[in-house]
């Protein structure tokens, strides 16, 4: 009996973030299918390496010996400006030279793209997921690797329509080679990712009153949805009989972050609301919320909001967002017409009131189920397995 074909799953590291935890779940689910023998290649280590090693053989590039004869020979080749030979030697050190066309490589994001430098051109087929934050591609990949990516990847699996559009329209990837898949989501853990503190402790640290309803949002890359969210918060403050509300915003250092800080400054000054800017703690942001607002113009639902929904946090969103399809009958009221900030404020006020009165449990449960079905590891495994089977038939 021959060995089953192999699947090399490549990722940049194993940090204890929500995304990192989701990755471990994914590898475990891929291994459980038994379709291929799964191995993992990470470029950097991290606290989740042991968890990964328990589900599949795991190699960390950063842990390769630095002073072995092999390593010195590899470095000498690069110093002599013979990168192709250097990469071949690196492939041998990682055992990648033995991977055959029937095998497959799955890149879990563009940060794993450098593995393509080592793979023989007639080697295993390659499937590559393009995550939400990795668009535009040029921001995530240098031009040389991007060219390699476009030439070498057999099937792209972008999680957003924007990602697929960019691949097809700007990088000339044939439509059949780019198939959109749903993002992979796990519920927010009660432990604040990476810190070991509980979400309740973190709320207290941020000065959020225990009885306050936390209405949260975040924007890491652009003014959308910063602008609309701030308006809705301002309107929410004027609604009658709203219990104490804390606004929570997490943003990376971007123009959006500046404008949201500006807006929170004014909302606080006006006594309309309190605001907590979380800086770059994006992973934790949604776990701290009682209600989330996703008022983006884009059609896709960012990872953090999916996480929130999968954890039972009601999410108010505009019609046309993919999350609107998930908000099944019980949570349908959370979908408001595009740009209708008044309706969004009304809905938030209603949710805040009902949360204080015991919470919309039925809707939350329906939401959890809907999101987990569509965005859970099982759905991701099915999409990846199908793509791999197409490009690397056994």
């Amino acid at each position, binding site marked *: 009996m021959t060995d089953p074909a192999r699947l090399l799953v490549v990722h940049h590291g194993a940090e204890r973030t929500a995304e990192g935890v989701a990755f471990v779940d994914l590898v475990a689910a891929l291994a459980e299918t038994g379709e291929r023998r799964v191995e993992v290649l990470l470029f950097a280590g991290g606290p989740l390496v042991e968890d990964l090693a328990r589900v599949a053989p795991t190699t960390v590039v950063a842990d390769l010996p630095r002073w072995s004869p092999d390593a010195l020979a590899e470095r000498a080749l690069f110093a002599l400006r013979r990168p192709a030979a250097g990469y071949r030697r690196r492939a041998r050190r990682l055992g990648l030279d033995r991977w055959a066309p029937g095998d497959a490589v799955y890149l879990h994001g563009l940060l794993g793209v450098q593995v393509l430098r080592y793979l023989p051109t007639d080697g295993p087929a390659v499937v590559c997921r393009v995550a939400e934050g990795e668009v535009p591609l040029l921001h995530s990949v240098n031009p040389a690797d991007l060219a390699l990516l476009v030439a070498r990847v057999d099937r792209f699996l972008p999680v957003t329509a924007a990602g697929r559009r960019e691949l097809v329209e700007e990088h000339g990837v044939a439509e059949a080679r780019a198939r959109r898949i749903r993002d992979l989501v796990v519920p927010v853990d009660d432990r604040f990712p990476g810190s070991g503190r509980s979400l309740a402790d973190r709320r207290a640290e941020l000065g959020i009153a225990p009885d306050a309803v936390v209405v949260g949002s975040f924007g890491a890359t652009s*003014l*959308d949805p910063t*602008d*609309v969210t*701030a*308006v809705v*918060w*301002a*309107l929410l403050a*004027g609604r009658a009989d709203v219990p104490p509300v804390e606004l929570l915003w997490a943003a990376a250092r971007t*123009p959006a972050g*500046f*404008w949201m800080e*500006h*807006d929170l400054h*004014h*909302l606080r000054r*006006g006594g*309309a609301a309190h605001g907590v800017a979380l800086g770059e703690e994006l992973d934790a942001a949604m776990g701290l919320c009682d209600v989330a607002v996703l008022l983006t*113009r884009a059609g896709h639902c960012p990872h953090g909001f999916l996480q929130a929904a999968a954890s039972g946090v009601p999410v108010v969103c505009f019609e*046309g967002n993919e999350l609107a399809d998930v908000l099944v009958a019980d949570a349908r009221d959370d979908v408001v017409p*595009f*740009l*209708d*900030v*008044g309706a969004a404020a009304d809905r938030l006020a209603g949710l805040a009131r009902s949360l204080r009165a015991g919470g919309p449990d039925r809707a939350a449960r329906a939401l959890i189920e809907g999101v987990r079905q569509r965005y859970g590891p099982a759905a991701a495994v099915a999409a990846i397995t199908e793509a791999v089977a197409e490009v690397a038939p056994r």
Partner: protein
Amino acid sequence: MSAPSDDGRGTPDVVFVSHEATRTGAPLMLLYVLRWLRDHSELRFEVLLLEGGAIEADFAAVAPTTVVADIGPGRLDGVARRFGAHRLADRLHERRRRAALAPLRGASLVYCNVLESLAALPLLDPGPPDRVVVTHIHEMRAAFRALAPAARAQLRRSDRFVAASDLVRELAIDHFGIDPERIVRHYECIDVEALHATPPPAEAVEAARRSCGIPVGAPVVGAVGVTGWRKGPDLFVLLADHLHRREATRDVHFVWLGADPEAPETRSLRRDVERAGLADVVHFVAPEPAPGRWFALFDVFTLTSREDPFPLVCLESSLLGTPIVCFANTGMAEFAGEGECGFMVDYLDVEAMAARVTDLLEDPDRRAEVGRRASERVQREFDYRVAAPLLAADIERWRPRR
């Protein structure tokens, strides 16, 4: 004694520095003040522009004007650059610029018209030991944050400050740490006579209306500015969306003047408008050199800026008797008041803004009354013939005596 400059003119008493000569608020205000100084004072002054622009010739008509960006590289710099000696080339270019500006160095007062123009100070060094530097702050937090390090580093050299509104003065004291004793407020001003002398012909106003497909008699809510996020064009769309959902204001049209059609923000706004089903009633119009016909078309003027010191477009609109509605965190709220010359609403409260706009549209008498008061106040206080002498008196007071 003043050293003669290359063309025989003496060293100026004052050098007015502007970051550019575009047809925007700060350069226009400076131009008005300089015209008054030319006609009514003995002050010898020159203009230094970091970059040129549409009103460069207007500056040149008032006083000798030098554009720093036009002092190009010389032959030596070019040779150095060709051989890859970029640092040397930069130094040679810098030396050329400093040589060209040598005649301005003896000025006893340098007036930097926006924070960005502070970057010119090193080019005017060394100056007289008693030289006074005045900085006119037309900016708020966003602009201060975006200020180039070269200009930021010069801020502490400024001896006096002029703030474009009380709000800007407050911000300068609280946020920039400027000594309250060293900063005075002078509101922005416009050329009332020129605007009165060239009213837009009725046909031009009608042509503007037709170009947007606005039916005769349909009310028009206007706004003017670039489509950058600071000006809040997205909030203007939310305002339109809110009004359009009501039966009573469904026939209102919304015109945003000054939208560069190629700007990414404009494209994004157009997508919003189409998706929200507002494409028939929300119109983004490209900037025009003589925008008077659009101002005449507006029934109510809205200022949706997230921050704005004291925009001239509001004064121009008010002069025509069109009342403004703005957010309370802009300098314009000091002018509008609570129904005196316009209305202010809480920041971001587009529902309140929509309610004010609706009130004004539904009550033509009140609109006319508020508009009349606004127009009278602009003529009384914000014409440069009134405002420039006050600023000139301060400049004279601050200038070192020799």
